[in-house]
């Protein structure tokens, strides 16, 4: 992956797209102007229609043998045009002459004290008739209430006799919340549609369109890999989708911010202006949607031989994305941990949540993580599809070719795309399978997760891809110095990282103390305190040794090997460290695990061997377990202890860093620079 090439491709695709008026119209003019205008128009026309209806009196007919005086009196109102008919000339409500026809043939004088049956006929499909029946019903109820009071009085009873309870409903939700609820019911779906429309045209144009215009072979004459081409094109599609989404958001913010849409009496009740934090949050959601939808649409379009076919292919995708999102939009659906993993639906729910409750960092991280994983998975498929002969030569591509082993050439290390794909799959396995089994059976679940979902599949994937195991898993003898550095860092890292983690979490995140406590409880639930030597050994094997081997095979083996020497060592370390941090599925532990990941990556890059990283990992986890169970202290006490140890730990830590990064003496094999 060479970023300059990807940037060149993105730039060229954007330039071409922006020269195309159709794209520009679809992505900027349409969302920024049309949707808000349309909304405005629809609501205002509806409002005008409503006013016009309300200005007209309702035509009500009463059918009776003799004029029922009490009924006529009850219905005498400025909004009602009343006429009375004998049964022989009774009108039909469906004739359009009358909005409501009241059949009062069975009329009796209500003074007699009975219950008087009357039929009120109307047409629910006729707006005027519906309005008329509302008016009639209100008047009749008023009259009925008055009659009840009269009868109660006549019987010497008060009104409270029939009203033992007098509830009054008070809406205590804030104006912004009510506004958010209203927006939450409509804004997300608009966002998803505009981002989709923004991505739709370019994702077809840049893939199937390129084949149709027979420029794809021209492109493949350049020394650029399919993955780089897909990445460049993808970024261009994302860029256009973003433009479209942002333009739409801007339009919406302007319309709602000005309160243009709503009648003043409604605006008193709710506040639909979006606070800046929510606008930023919505923008982030648009980014997520753009990343996901662009990837999906592009992948499908790659399979199509022509523009027209591509349009046919993406239609079901469009529906698959829109329909669940519309369902999620309905009241009653809220973001929970399961729905947070469902593509597109999760972003809709996240937007809903933001509009209602403001930005919740935890939900955001979860949804963003899931979306990024899903998008990168789809993208890797796109990368493999795009390189297929069938796609380049102009026939259509098929998913079957993904499986063709002949397309796999043996080589020393996995490619970046393969690493991203495997990481993404591993992430999903961890989330869906690992977390579930650990719920049911903590200890066996953890063993299964580490060995069955992380270690074994990583090794199998490496085999399938025909990579060299020594190169990929860094199976070389470690240098003494790297082992010394690992030991120093492992012993001190737990204190330093814990303190740093505490500081950073306190600064940035809410409720980090509560989280720490919850984490400790979780640990106790998973691992009851060890009572004898055997317990300790089992515990350390499970918590220290297993993760050290399994996770290192994936992160400092497979992943690091894929980026090593292809990007700068610093970037390689950073990327794998962040991947490692995210893998722990907790924003509160993100910082600590990422720092640890950086150190371990540096160890491998400097020494060329995975063992120092395994050793550091095991030491770190082992000491954490010892600290958890071996030291019986209250949280406050423990914190004080940490602070007391900090200077010494810092000293060891720095010594470890020096040992790690000290330049090699000339004459020895030079390891890669950090």
């Amino acid at each position, binding site marked *: 992956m060479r970023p300059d*090439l990807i940037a060149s491709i993105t730039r*060229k695709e954007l330039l071409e797209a922006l020269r*195309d008026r159709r794209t520009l119209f679809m992505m900027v003019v349409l969302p920024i102007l049309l949707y808000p205008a349309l909304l405005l128009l629809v609501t205002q026309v509806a409002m005008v229609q409503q006013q016009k209806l309300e200005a007209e009196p309702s035509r009500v007919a009463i059918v009776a043998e003799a004029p029922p005086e009490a009924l006529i009196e009850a219905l005498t109102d400025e909004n009602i045009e009343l006429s009375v008919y004998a049964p022989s000339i009774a009108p039909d409500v469906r004739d359009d002459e009358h909005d409501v026809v009241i059949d009062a043939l069975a009329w009796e004088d209500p003074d007699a004290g009975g219950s008087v049956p009357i039929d009120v006929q109307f047409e629910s499909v006729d707006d005027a008739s519906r309005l008329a029946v509302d008016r009639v019903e209100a008047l009749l109820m008023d009259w009925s209430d008055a009659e009840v009071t009269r009868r109660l009085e006549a019987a010497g009873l008060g009104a409270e006799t029939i009203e033992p309870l007098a509830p009054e409903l008070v809406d205590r939700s804030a104006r912004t919340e009510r506004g958010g609820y209203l927006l939450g019911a409509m804004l997300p779906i608009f966002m998803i549609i505009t981002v989709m429309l923004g991505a739709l045209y370019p994702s077809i144009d840049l893939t199937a369109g390129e084949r149709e215009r027979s420029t794809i072979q*021209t492109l493949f004459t*350049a020394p650029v890999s399919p993955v780089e081409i897909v990445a460049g094109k993808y970024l261009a599609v994302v860029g256009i989708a973003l433009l479209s989404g942002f333009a739409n958001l801007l339009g919406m913010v302007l319309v709602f911010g000005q309160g243009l849409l709503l009648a003043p009496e409604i605006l008193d009740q709710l506040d639909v202006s979006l606070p800046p934090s929510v606008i930023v949050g919505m923008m982030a959601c648009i980014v997520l949607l753009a990343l996901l939808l662009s990837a999906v649409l592009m992948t499908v379009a790659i399979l199509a031989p022509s523009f027209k076919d591509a349009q046919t292919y993406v239609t079901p995708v469009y529906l698959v994305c829109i329909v669940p999102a519309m369902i999620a939009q309905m009241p009653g659906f809220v973001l929970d941990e399961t729905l947070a993993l469902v593509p597109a639906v999760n972003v809709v729910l996240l937007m809903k949540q933001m509009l209602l409750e403001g930005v919740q960092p935890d939900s955001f991280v979860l949804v963003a993580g899931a979306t990024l994983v899903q998008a990168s998975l789809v993208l890797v498929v796109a990368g493999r599809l795009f390189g297929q002969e069938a796609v380049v030569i*102009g026939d259509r591509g098929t998913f079957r070719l993904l499986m063709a082993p002949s397309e796999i*050439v043996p080589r020393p290390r996995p490619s970046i795309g393969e690493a991203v794909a495997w990481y993404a799959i591993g992430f999903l396995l961890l989330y869906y399978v690992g977390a579930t089994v650990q719920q049911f059976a903590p200890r066996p679940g953890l063993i299964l997760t580490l060995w069955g979902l992380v270690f074994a599949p990583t090794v199998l994937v490496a085999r399938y891809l025909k990579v060299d195991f020594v190169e990929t898993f860094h199976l070389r003898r470690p240098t003494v110095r790297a082992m010394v550095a690992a030991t120093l860092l492992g012993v001190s890292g737990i204190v330093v990282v814990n303190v740093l983690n505490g500081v950073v979490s306190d600064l940035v995140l809410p409720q980090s103390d509560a989280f720490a406590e919850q984490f400790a409880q979780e640990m106790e639930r998973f691992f009851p305190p060890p009572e004898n030597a055997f317990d300790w050994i089992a515990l350390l094997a499970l918590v220290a040794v297993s993760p050290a081997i399994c996770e290192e095979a994936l992160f400092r083996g497979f992943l690091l090997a894929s980026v090593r020497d292809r990007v700068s060592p610093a970037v390689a370390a950073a990327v794998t460290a962040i991947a490692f941090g995210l893998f722990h599925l907790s924003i509160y532990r993100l910082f600590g695990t990422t720092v640890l990941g950086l150190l371990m990556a540096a160890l491998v890059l400097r020494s060329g061997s995975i063992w120092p990283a395994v050793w550091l990992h095991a030491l770190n986890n082992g000491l954490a377990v010892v600290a958890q169970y071996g030291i019986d202290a209250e949280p406050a006490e423990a914190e004080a202890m940490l602070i007391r140890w900090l200077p010494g730990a810092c000293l060891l830590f720095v010594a470890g860093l020096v040992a790690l990064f000290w330049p090699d003496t000339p004459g020895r094999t030079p390891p890669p620079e950090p």
Partner: protein
Amino acid sequence: MIEVEGVTRSYGDTVAVDDLSFVVRPGEVVGLLGPNGAGKTTTLRMIATLLKPDRGVIRVQGHDVVHEPLAVRAALGYQTGDTGLYGRLTPREFLRYFGRLHRMPKAELEDRIDTLVHDFDIGEFADRPCSGLSTGQKQRVTLARTVLHDPPVLVLDEPTSGLDLVSAAFILQTIRRFAASGRAVLFSTHIMSEVELLCDRVVLIDRGVARARGTVDDLLRQSGEPQLSRAFLALVGRPLEAA
């Protein structure tokens, strides 16, 4: 230098190229001749890394097409009827884009584009969108793109197809110049006069198999025919009946 060794490629049950071997050396123009469906395009596409051979090895400047496709493409100028232009870019932008994809340094790239615009007489339409260019103009832009990164090896698939005499002559002269400057050129064509004019050697294939190879004179001698067209037909087993 192009080395093709025992290359076979099938599409399903159809064998398009069968155990084909030949070499194109620096400074040499080799013509790939054959009737429609002989496997010419498949061969050229395999050299250009667009298709993978089922068996055999192809090397371009020593780089294997399967294992080092990017190195092969960097050393290769490839042109076919299927290598179109981007309609919404101008020739200059188009060349700049491919220069960037070849990672040519900026200043060098601009100089190179200016030279090519001059050499290929593109100046007049260099800043108009490619979609509005004539066939001959498009072909000149394509050829400029083919040699933009100064590749040591050129693979051209019927470079004069659809061109008038003047444009075709210009293209042929250009090919000659490329070879004279030490590049290895492989090109396919149907036009026998082009073969006689340009080719140092010829590889004649039919139904995926090499039927003859050598200079034009060798081919005439092998077939016992006085004319290259007749020799061609005789060698692919469909001799022209005497009138």
